[in-house]
């Protein structure tokens, strides 16, 4: 890992932190992506529109990144299709069951010193490490 990668990672993190802070300061909302998505899929008046605006912002930001550096979306991980789909379902279901994901627990919750978020972050990181160990080393390929 080069010095410029470290710098861009830190800066990327700072942008994520600033965006989360602005959403909280102005709208009083936690920038938890799975929560925002969950609410976006379940229409409730007044609770619905802003979530789609946030998603539209994510996509617009993604387009800007893609225009400048399409390599930012490189996929060098090879999983079988059934496994990949199962992974997607687990991420969606697990984030809702556990009331948050890497953004809600991992960024916002840790920053507020929430014990729940510390536990959730430790658990999903450990579970991810075990999963990668099993797929990439024990089963070699997945």
């Amino acid at each position, binding site marked *: 890992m080069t010095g410029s990668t470290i710098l861009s990672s830190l*800066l*990327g*993190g*700072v942008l*994520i*932190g*600033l*965006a989360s*802070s602005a*959403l909280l*300061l102005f*709208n*009083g*909302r*936690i*920038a938890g992506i*799975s929560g925002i*998505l969950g609410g976006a899929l379940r229409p409730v008046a007044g609770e619905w529109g*802003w979530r789609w605006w*946030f*998603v539209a*912002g*994510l*996509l617009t*930001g*993604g387009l*800007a*990144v893609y225009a400048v550096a399409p390599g930012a*979306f490189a*996929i060098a*991980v090879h999983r079988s299709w059934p496994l*990949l*789909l*199962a*992974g*997607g*379902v687990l*991420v*969606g279901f697990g*984030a*809702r*069951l556990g*009331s948050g*994901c*890497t953004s809600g*627990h991992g960024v916002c919750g*840790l*920053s*507020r010193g929430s014990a*729940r978020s510390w536990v*959730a*972050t430790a658990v*999903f*990181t450990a579970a991810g*490490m075990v999963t990668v*160990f099993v*797929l*990439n*080393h024990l089963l070699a390929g*997945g």
Partner: protein
Amino acid sequence: MRNGVAFGTGLVFALGLGLGGMTQPARIIGFLDVAGQWDPTLVFVLAGAVGTHMLAWRWIRRQRHPVLAAGFQIPRERLIDTRLVLGAALFGVGWGIGGYCPGPAITALVSGHPVALAFVGAMLAGVALFDLTPLGSPRALPARPAQPDTAAQAVPAHEELSAPTDA
């Protein structure tokens, strides 16, 4: 106005994900692969994000209410229960498989890559599946109104913080 803030913060959030390398599943898998060639990128992204948000939070928590809203909607739940741990564990397994968490996955849709499209489709199916379970019903947890992403009650930050904190 609030929608504009939501759009702008979503946009900056995605720029941060892209700049930080979080939209590359190989970086996530590399971070989780402690027995292989470990990639510490995520640690730096998390440090930047948590450092920034922690500093901001120290100031935001003293505000009576958000600039554009009546109250802060901050999770007040303190219970560390099976639901939290099981949900995080399932999430972690899926994260380790695909190398995507929800934000980067949504952002990666713009690349049009079949892997990103399929993962997001499955992820939304997972969210919808949860909503079909008794736990996913908005009425399932009447005694716990402060779930961060369901029907959180609007409370001023100072009120939230007058309660004993769990940290």
